[in-house]
């Protein structure tokens, strides 16, 4: 028997500590973030319980060690992959927020097309464009051949569907997580559209 198992057991919940949360929008429309803000005055309660790391709310550029990383949007380019990996490396829990993070969503509806044809049409052949050629500045992230949901690249711990997920659903999920409960959504809070 190990000494750890003989150690005194503390059945009380751990002392309150503000959980650190990071959020980002990859190939998304920020609609899920807007829905997060739609929790309205409950955000004040939330701020008593969490502090934000990297997020459009804080404008912090890189993610530090966090308890929870919230990802909106899927993966459509190399930068999305970099950001997602940064989150996965620094966050104990990753939450896929909304349709695009979960199944690629609207951006993934380009997936039945060949990316080369798309680039050619958008930058070269379509009427009314500047015909300046396909941008090749190294500052620009390259698009992926296909758009992918985030669980195809990193392990995702929780999913919250919706386009966007309703504010009440986000609130329910966050409060469940904060309270140490496995999140559940009843009828009306769970929808894919």
């Amino acid at each position, binding site marked *: 028997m190990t000494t750890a198992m003989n150690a005194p057991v503390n059945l009380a919940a751990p002392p309150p500590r503000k959980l650190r949360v990071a959020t980002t929008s990859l190939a998304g429309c920020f609609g899920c973030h807007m829905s997060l803000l739609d929790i309205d005055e409950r955000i004040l309660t939330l701020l008593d319980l969490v502090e934000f790391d990297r997020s459009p709310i804080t404008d912090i550029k890189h993610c530090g060690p966090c308890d929870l990383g919230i990802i909106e949007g899927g993966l459509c380019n*190399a930068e999305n992959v970099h*950001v997602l990996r940064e989150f996965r490396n620094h966050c104990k829990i990753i939450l896929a927020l909304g349709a695009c993070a979960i199944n690629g969503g609207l951006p993934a509806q380009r997936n039945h097309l060949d990316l*080369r044809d798309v680039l050619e049409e958008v930058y070269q052949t379509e009427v009314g464009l500047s015909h300046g050629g396909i941008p090749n500045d190294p500052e620009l992230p390259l*698009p992926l051949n296909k758009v992918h949901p985030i669980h195809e690249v990193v392990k995702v711990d929780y999913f919250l569907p919706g386009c966007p997920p309703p504010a009440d659903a986000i609130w329910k999920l966050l409060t469940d997580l904060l309270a140490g409960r496995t999140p559940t959504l009843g009828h009306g809070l769970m929808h894919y559209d």
Partner: protein
Amino acid sequence: MSDTDTIDAVLDRHRRDGTRLMQILRETQEQLGWLAPATLTRIAEAVAWPRAKVEGTADFYSFFHTRPLGRYRVLWSDNITDRMLGNIDLMDAMCKKLWLEPGRVSEDGLVSVDTTSCTGMCDQGPALLVNYRAITRLTPARVGEMVGLIRSETPVADWPAEWFAVEDNIRRKDILLGHGLVPGEALAAALERGPEKMLAEIKAAGLRGRGGAGFGTGLKWKACRNAPGQGDNPAHYVVCNADEGEPGTFKDRVLLSSYADLVFEGISIAGLVVGARKGLLYLRGEYRYLLEGLESALAARRQAGLLGANILGTAFDFDIEIHLGAGAYICGEESALIESLEGKPGRPRIRPPFPVTQGYLGQPTTVNNVETLAASCLIASHGSAWYLAHGTGKSAGSKILSISGDCERPGIYEYPYGVTVRQVLADCGATQCQAVQVSGPSGICLAEEEFGRRIAFEDIPTAGALMVFDESRDMFEVARNFAHFFAHESCGFCTPCRVGTTLVRNLMDKIARQHGSPYDINELFKLHRLMQGASHCGLGNSACNPVFDTLNKFRPAYERRLMSLDYEPAFDLDAALSQARQMTGRDDVGAHLSTHLPNGAEA
């Protein structure tokens, strides 16, 4: 002759009968090269079926094509035994010489090269089909010559005859292969006994199905015999299942090549017992080359009074028809086979009702394996007591094994039931043996410590395929080949099998690319658990067996391929930027993604 005349001639030959659609499509395609939209429309009108139904059959079977696939269609058998004999290198060499990608048709419409499921030539591979004719023992020289013949558009009929030679390779005979009966002898004995006593004899002999499941043949015949015929034209049918599709199995090929009379006689005896006037032999499309020989064997039997009206001077009328399949493993399942006989896609039926009460055309039908029917002749001739003296307590008689893979003498071996796997391996010259796959991909994989097990219904029931793998073989690659096989052969009817077989294949490919993690192995187990209980038929239920067996018995073959102990991306991240790199011409650091992130590194 115009295309329309050609189609009409085929239709007339088959009495414009929709249930003969498989034969109509095959014969039409043999003459016209492919099944064009207008061809399908004409056939649908003639047989008075909805057009979509005809199209549904046409695009279900691998050997029917609803788009042109070249005047020469080369299909390389892609069983693991063909792989071990180097088929992929040979196919690549052929494609290179023809300036062709596998699966694509050459721009001039001359030729296409692709792979197909096991063609049943495992003892003499690598094998292929050219315009659905079997060619065995491929070598680089033969491939070179073949390319020349294709380029010069030499008709396949004029290719060297020795290429099409298929050897029996019978290495060990027992009571069945050494039967010594003359045509008509067993049937005469059965007629003398009469149907009831013949049925009693079959039951007393304990004859069980040789397709692997081992259902009592007497029980099946009795159920069929007792079931009333349906409707205005009541009838009973015997169907001989010669859709020998399980990779690694080729015993029926040999029985039909050199023991056709015994098989036909067995079908006739079954017909006598169940009260049928018609028997159907469902021959897999890969064995198309046997058709003419079988037809003449039937003609000879009619001539000899062994088929037709008043057989051997009795009141028994019976005849046999041959139906060809068209490349669908699922048709080995008896109810799918019946669907195919009726001109439909080979989709297993919901059971009950079972074929013995509602089978072919809704009538009572007994579907039996080729070897089972042949074995019934021995019981008719020699009686049950004699038969019971062979084999073991619960497995009377003998079993024909198809042996291929890493052994000195691949081929056909017949043993009394009860022989150990170790004995068989010794006899075929398998040394340094690591594993044996028994009963093909849907069967079981035996590791060395299990070689003492016996071929018998009490221990290992099997249709008789033994694929041998020596210590140089990678058992992961064996399982991956089988995963590809099931994904290709899933009929697509039920969700767990349709999607599950492809998910399994993709996971195996991911591990093969060395992009896997233990997470992916857990996923394989999860899919196995789902598919095994929830699938509609045996294909889906057993499709994960090879993965499950090798994961349990050869786990290091998987583990050494894993990339990490973490979660790994589903796809190659850097390759996912390839099209954008191509279009922008970029190759800077930012135009690449490392596949694996070192622990703790900043992204």
